[in-house]
Every structure is written in structure tokens, then in C-alpha cells.
């Protein structure tokens, strides 16, 4: 048996042990259902935040101080203007106050009263209005300015009636995926690879620590080359990650059947330039990203002797990974730039960047090249991790050539 096939067999033996130990542990169920907890907490937190925001926004008002004869015109113009918002309450509701003897003082006083939550106030003549607004209400001040302009136009036109009939609207479907749709898919592909990798690869960090605490490492090191041990650990961890992704992927794949027709039409706008091969490429790049990041985590975890050290060493890797994703996302937004090429070549951002490229560009050959390049870096990372472990933990390693000569 060649040393490669023996190493592969040994790696798979270790992978099998790790996979079974992970998947058949009760904690795996908790791991599998983590997204439910995430989504659940997200919904609860989102609802709470929305409730708090809505209650605050509902109290806010825009105020126009105007003579009584202008109130009706202002109100009807405001109603017309709000038609451009899908949600009419995108801006605070309007209140029109009757103008007093000193409109400037009246406007200023509105901001001092506890009973009012005024975002912006308009007073003065419509052809030269004055607007006061709070520091966070610049958008509201623009709206009031537009309200004054439109009210003045309506006044000059003799009333607020529409000059045209309501438009005859008809939704259309594009014949092909839009470029913005590709861009969105590119971002989501890079983000998806990043998110899944970040969420799942962390489990590799403790893999070698387990061997060290159980003292099994000596048995493994005697029977199996360390590279095979590391690859076995990676494959075992990847197996459980694949199970996780397959489970949630199946659920997500069924979701479009349940989304509203408008959203389904919006989803139809999305697509990847490479076509139906895209899911396969996404899986391939997820695999490579997982292997690369896990190999780094595994190497760091192998060198650390305490949980505290593992935690401290994991953070820089995570930050590095976030930076690599940022690099890839920046490149994905500029598909023809040198940054895009650089992010596709740099091994640790390459899976994210190439997943994005699959959405933006139809050629397939760069993907074959990239997958080979990334696989090479997985091997390099694992080899470096194994060597560091051999030298640092097993206290082994060949002497430097100079020392070797002296010892001969």
C-alpha cells in the first residue's frame, strides 16, 4: 500500500471516529437547532426594538403653522405627497396649527413642550418658508420644504386636484437576470460562504485539544502521520458541518413555495451568471473556505494547551476571516477591478470572492483553477499546522542542516 493511500485510509478512520462521536452526541441536536434559537431570539429582539421605535415614531409630528384658510390645501397636498411612500407613515404625520401673532416664537415654543414630540416645524409665507428641525430630522425638513412648494403650486393652479389621471400600472418580468440581481447574488454568495464558515468552523479549534486532554494523541501519532491526523479531524468536522448545512439547506429550499407572489417575483430577478452550476460551485467554495479556516483553527487549537489560550488565539483568526470577507465583498462590488482579482487570488478570501465571481461572470475555467489553488492552500495550511504541532507539542523535528552536519 502506498504511503498516500495508507495516509488517506488513516485520515478517513479518524474522520469516521470524530464524525460518529460528534453526530451521535446529544449536544449535536442543540448544535443543529442553533439557527432556530438565533432566529427566535432575533424575532423577539426585533419585535421589541420595533415596538420601541414604532411607539416613539408614532408620537412624532411635523407641524405647519399657517393661516386658517390654508389648512385644507396643506392637508390635501400632504396626502398627495405621501403617495410616493409605500408606507404612508414613512414620515411623521402632519399637524397644522393656526398661525398666531408671532409665528417664529410659536414655532420655537413647540420644541420646548413636553406634550409634543415635534420633528420639524414650517412657518412663514409659502414662497419663503422657514423650517426648524431637530438634528435627526433633516429628511423631515426636506419633506416640509416640498410640501410648501407643492402647496404653493396647488394654490396657483387653483386647487389640489390632480392634473393627470391615475397611471395604468402593469408589472413586467425581465427576460433575463438583471445586473443588480447578479450583484446581489454575488454579495449573498460571498456572505453565505463567510457566514456558514464562521459559524461552523469554530468546532475544529477544540478537536486536537480533545486528543491532548485524553492523551490519545500519542496513540495517533505513533500509528498515523500527523498530516493524516489533521486531515482526518478536518474531514470529520466537515462531515458534521455538511449535515448541518444539508438539514437547513433542505428547509430553505422549500421556503420559496411559501413566500408571497411579490417576493417570489423579486427572487426571480436574482440569478448567477454561471447558471445552474452555481449551487455546486457554492458548495465547493464553502468546502474550501471551511477547510482553510478550520485548518487554521485546528492548528491554533493544537498548539494551545488551555481553553483560555484557545479562546485568545481564536479571536485573531476570526478577525482575519472577517477582513478576508470584507476584501472579497469589496471586490465583488467591483467585478472588473484589480481588488476583485486580488481577492480571488489571495487564498483566504478566494472562496468568498470566487463564489461572488460565479454570480457576476459566466466563465467556468477560473473556478477549476481557483478550486485547485484553494485545495493546495488547504494542504499547505494543514502541513504547516502539523509541523508546528510536531515541533511545539511532540518536541520533534529535524535539526537545522548545520546542526545535522555537526552531529554526523
Amino acid at each position, binding site marked *: 500500500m502506498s504511503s498516500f493511500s495508507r495516509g488517506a485510509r488513516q485520515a478517513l478512520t479518524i474522520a469516521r471516529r470524530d464524525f460518529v462521536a460528534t453526530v451521535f452526541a446529544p449536544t449535536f441536536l442543540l448544535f443543529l437547532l442553533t439557527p432556530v434559537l438565533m432566529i427566535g431570539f432575533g424575532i423577539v429582539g426585533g419585535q421589541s426594538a420595533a415596538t420601541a421605535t414604532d411607539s416613539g415614531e408614532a408620537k412624532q409630528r411635523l407641524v405647519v403653522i399657517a393661516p386658517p384658510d390654508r389648512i385644507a390645501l396643506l392637508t390635501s397636498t400632504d396626502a398627495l405627497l405621501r403617495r410616493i411612500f409605500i408606507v404612508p407613515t414613512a414620515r411623521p404625520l402632519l399637524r397644522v396649527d393656526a398661525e398666531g401673532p408671532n409665528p417664529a416664537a410659536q414655532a420655537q415654543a413647540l420644541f420646548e413642550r413636553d406634550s409634543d414630540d415635534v420633528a420639524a416645524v414650517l412657518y412663514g409665507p409659502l414662497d419663503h418658508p422657514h423650517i426648524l428641525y431637530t438634528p435627526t430630522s433633516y429628511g423631515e425638513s426636506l419633506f416640509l420644504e416640498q410640501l410648501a412648494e407643492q402647496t404653493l403650486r396647488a394654490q396657483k393652479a387653483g386647487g389640489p386636484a390632480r392634473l393627470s389621471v391615475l397611471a395604468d400600472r402593469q408589472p413586467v418580468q425581465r427576460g433575463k437576470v438583471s445586473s443588480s440581481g447578479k450583484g446581489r447574488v454575488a454579495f449573498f454568495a460571498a456572505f453565505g460562504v463567510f457566514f456558514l464558515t464562521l459559524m461552523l468552523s469554530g468546532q475544529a479549534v477544540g478537536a486536537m485539544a480533545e486528543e491532548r486532554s485524553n*492523551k490519545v494523541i500519542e496513540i495517533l501519532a505513533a500509528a498515523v502521520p500527523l498530516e493524516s491526523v489533521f486531515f482526518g479531524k478536518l474531514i470529520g468536522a466537515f462531515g458534521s458541518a455538511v449535515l448541518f448545512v444539508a438539514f437547513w439547506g433542505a428547509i430553505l429550499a422549500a421556503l420559496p413555495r411559501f413566500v408571497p407572489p411579490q417576493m417570489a417575483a423579486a427572487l426571480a430577478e436574482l440569478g448567477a451568471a454561471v447558471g445552474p452550476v452555481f449551487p455546486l460551485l457554492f458548495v465547493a467554495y464553502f468546502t474550501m473556505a471551511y477547510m482553510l479556516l478550520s485548518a487554521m483553527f485546528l492548528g491554533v487549537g493544537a498548539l494551545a494547551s488551555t481553553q483560555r489560550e484557545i479562546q485568545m488565539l481564536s479571536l485573531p483568526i476570526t478577525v482575519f476571516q472577517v477582513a478576508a470577507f470584507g476584501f472579497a465583498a469589496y471586490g465583488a462590488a467591483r467585478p472588473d477591478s484589480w481588488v476583485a482579482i486580488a481577492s480571488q487570488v489571495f487564498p483566504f478570501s478566494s472562496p468568498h470572492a470566487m463564489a461572488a465571481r460565479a454570480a457576476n461572470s459566466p466563465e467556468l475555467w477560473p473556478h477549476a483553477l481557483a478550486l485547485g489553488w484553494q485545495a493546495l492552500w488547504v494542504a499547505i495550511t494543514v502541513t504547516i499546522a502539523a509541523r508546528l504541532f510536531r515541533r511545539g507539542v511532540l518536541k*520533534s523535528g529535524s535539526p537545522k542542516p548545520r546542526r545535522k552536519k555537526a552531529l554526523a
Partner: protein
Amino acid sequence: MSSNLAVSATGLVKRFGDRRVVDGVDIAVPKGLIYGVLGPNGAGKTTTLRMLLGIIEPDGGERMLLGRAHPREASDVVGYLPEERGLYPGMKCREAIAFLGALRGLPWAVGRERAGKLLEDAGLGHAADDKIRKLSKGMAQLVQLLGSVVHEPELLVLDEPFSGLDPVNQERLEALITAQRDRGATILFSTHVMAHAERLCDRLSIIAGGKVKFEGSVDDALGVLPLKAHYTPHHNADGLRALLPADAERENGSWRFAVPKDGIEGLLVKLIDAGHGISGLSIERPKLHDVFVRIVGKKALEEAPE
């Protein structure tokens, strides 16, 4: 290097920092024998075994394991029990043994089947489907040992196999080791307990301070020290001391001394002729422990690092 050797090494060197833990060790283990590596704590036994197995690389010297220059190439026909025992606590005994066999190329199914039989033979059949964490330390150690022989290796390397075992399990282990030798395997084990080495070893090395101080058969080792005579005279009269060898020491009414190189018969004739007579006489072979202490030196034993 001879093909009759299961293990051979010349000039093995290993340094940790500035310390030469193994300093030019030569070792030759003939096939089919039980070979002991003896030495005090910190002598370099474990490091030597780890280098022989390829767990760590030597800084100097050469080694051959079952005819292969690189130990990894022989890993499927080698079994190893490390000094620091280790098993996955969540694994069942049968699976743990099968896993250790699978690492050495034994199919899982065959490993499980053999594990059942090995556990039965070792008196652990009832625990075959128990998890390792449920076992006592001694039982777990036996399970690990069974895992190191499940693939029927040509060479079995055991590092301090008796440590932590009670007398009953020590006896079981001795039986298992001789059974492996009888099967045709070569056994290389390290220990600092002389009684086991004396009972089991066909040949042995004594290592101290990273160097081999002695290499040979157990008989060769015992021959390092002379036989001891324990003589009780019939009459403990004046002049007796003058007839006895210079190293004779009195113990109550008896005398203990090394048997002269030319034999004890001449001395006995003189003692009888002088009228001291013989009330009791026994000739004792030296113990391996005494040989070990003589070779290693009491000072080295006391200074041995933990």
C-alpha cells in the same frame, strides 16, 4: 543491518534544548524475543522508544524498524502502548479496540470481532459494550493494551506497561506478553521494575543518562555480580574471620560474602579443617535489581530527573 533484527538503532541522539536526553543509544532487538529497556526515571527510555517508532525524529543516528528505514512504513504491523494511556472516554470498549486496529489497517468489522474475543480472554467480556469512562484505570489500561495487539502486530512496543496495574492485572499482562511472543511477535518494553524484566526478558538494555550502560541477556546481566554465599558456622570460634573473604559481613550468627572466583569448595574445606563446621550454607544468585543498581549507580538513581 541484519534481517533477524526487529529493531535496530545506532547512535541515536535527541536533544531537548541544551540537554541531550538520548546520547548515542545503540539497540538491536532480535525477532521473536522479549526485549526490555531498563532504566531509572528520566533515563531516556520513552524518548528512545518514541524515536524508534517515528513519533519524534532523532537529531542524530539511524534506526530500522522491521527492515524499514522509516518507521511509519511499518506502522500497520506495529502495536504500541504509550506510557501515558489515552482512550476516548465516550467510546465503548469493543469500538475502542476496533478503532485502534483500524488505525493500523484492520477492517472495523474484523476488529470488532477480534475485540470481543480478546476481551473475553482477558476477563473483560462483560464490559465489551461499556463506555471507557465507566472502567477502572486498570481495566482501561488493559483495553488499550488489547487495542495494541488486535491487529496481531509483528512488533509490540510497550512503554512502562505495568505501571498503575494491580498484581492480578500485572499477572494477566505478563501472560499476554508471553502469549504474544509465543505467537511469533517481538516485544520491546520499557520498565523500571526489575522483577518483571527478570521474569519476562530474553534480552535487555540498561539505559541511564541517555546512554546504554549494558546490553545482553538476563543471564549476562546477572553475571555482572558474583554469586553470594550465606554461611552459618557450627562453631563461631576465633580465627573464623581470617579464613573468610575480605568482603564477608556478619549477619547475626551467619556470614555473607561473594563466592570466590575459583569456587567455594576450597574455602569450605579450610573451614571444616579449622573445626568451624557448617551449620547452614546457601548460594544465592544476585537479583537483577542489584545488577541494575550496580550498573546505573546509586548516585544516578538519586539524581534521576522525574
